[in-house]
């Protein structure tokens, strides 16, 4: 009897400790999406943006899509003096946190860009989140000379 009650109490505690993350919804908002204008022959672009999660629940960016090309999550990282770029399987966006996709770090890589990206234009991008579903945004194309230069 005593054991049973203890087990029940422990189970309740365990449930309670897990519960907030499951019950609290994430509140994801995307801002400041931009990409560089492509140069002749360049069919690859990187998209940078900020994901703010103002909710208590965690979320995960699973992938992205755009009619402009094939979008994949990517990250650049220094390995000694060498810059290596690799696909990312997913990107966690914890509750009450902000994740920045910026030059020299995590970005959304768009390959197979057929039409040149011209400064001043925009193109649509959809972000697919595990819990928040799809978010559609516009990406602003900036000239390489005005785009953010620091890493």
């Amino acid at each position, binding site marked *: 009897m005593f054991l049973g009650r203890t087990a029940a109490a422990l189970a309740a505690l365990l449930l309670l400790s897990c519960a907030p993350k499951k019950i609290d919804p994430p509140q994801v908002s995307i801002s400041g999406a931009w990409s*560089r*204008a492509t*140069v*002749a*022959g*360049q*069919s*690859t*672009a*990187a998209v940078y943006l900020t994901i703010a999660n103002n909710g208590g629940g965690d979320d995960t960016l699973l992938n992205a899509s755009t009619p402009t090309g*094939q979008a*994949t999550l*990517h990250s*650049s990282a*220094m*390995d*000694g*003096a*060498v*810059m*290596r*770029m*690799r*696909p990312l399987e997913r990107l966690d966006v914890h509750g009450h946190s902000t994740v920045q996709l910026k*030059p*020299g770090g995590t*970005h959304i*890589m*768009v*390959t*197979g860009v057929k039409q040149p990206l011209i400064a001043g234009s925009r193109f649509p991008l959809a972000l697919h989140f595990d819990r928040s579903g799809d978010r559609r945004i516009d990406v602003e194309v900036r*000239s*390489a*000379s*005005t*785009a*953010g*230069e*620091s*890493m």
Partner: protein
Amino acid sequence: MKQLRYVLWIGVALAAILLAYISLRTPSQNGPGANKSVAGSHFGGPFTLVGADGQPFSSTQLAGKPYVLYFGYTRCPDTCPTTLNRLVHLRREVGLGDDSFRIVFITVDPARDGPEEVGSYEKAFGAPIICLTGSPAQIDQVKKEYGIFSQKVPEAGGDYSVDHTATILLFDRNGKFAGTIAPDEADSAALGKLKNVTAA
């Protein structure tokens, strides 16, 4: 007295172990991609590549002005445009005009970057930069001389990206190696180095 001698011998033994540890450890810090030759005596040297006009470009054309060398590829979506744009902005901050030092970009992807591609890259940053290509053998040679590592990485859809050394190399007006800027180095430190090499 005997005890003191033991203590001294233990000290000597510990020092020997420490020295052995240091000498064994040092080479392993220069893994692949580390700029081993940067500190070496055979670093750099003259080169002949191909300019955006399709004509040979000799390093002697760089004499008389300081310059920075950066290796990359024009299809690079992230690091290369970020670095070149950063250099253009830093040169403005040095405040001595666009000809105070030259920004030289050398492709590590000659298969895709011909004179036409490096030519349009030259025009993309709103300020004068020199973009060079060459035959695969010429590029291999200059990479070797300047301690640059690069490696193709297959991407989805049959495309490829290139991992490469992203260090910026600095040279004074006599073409003498004057240091490096790491891509993740703070702008203030980078600016100090560029001011030094420009003033030298």
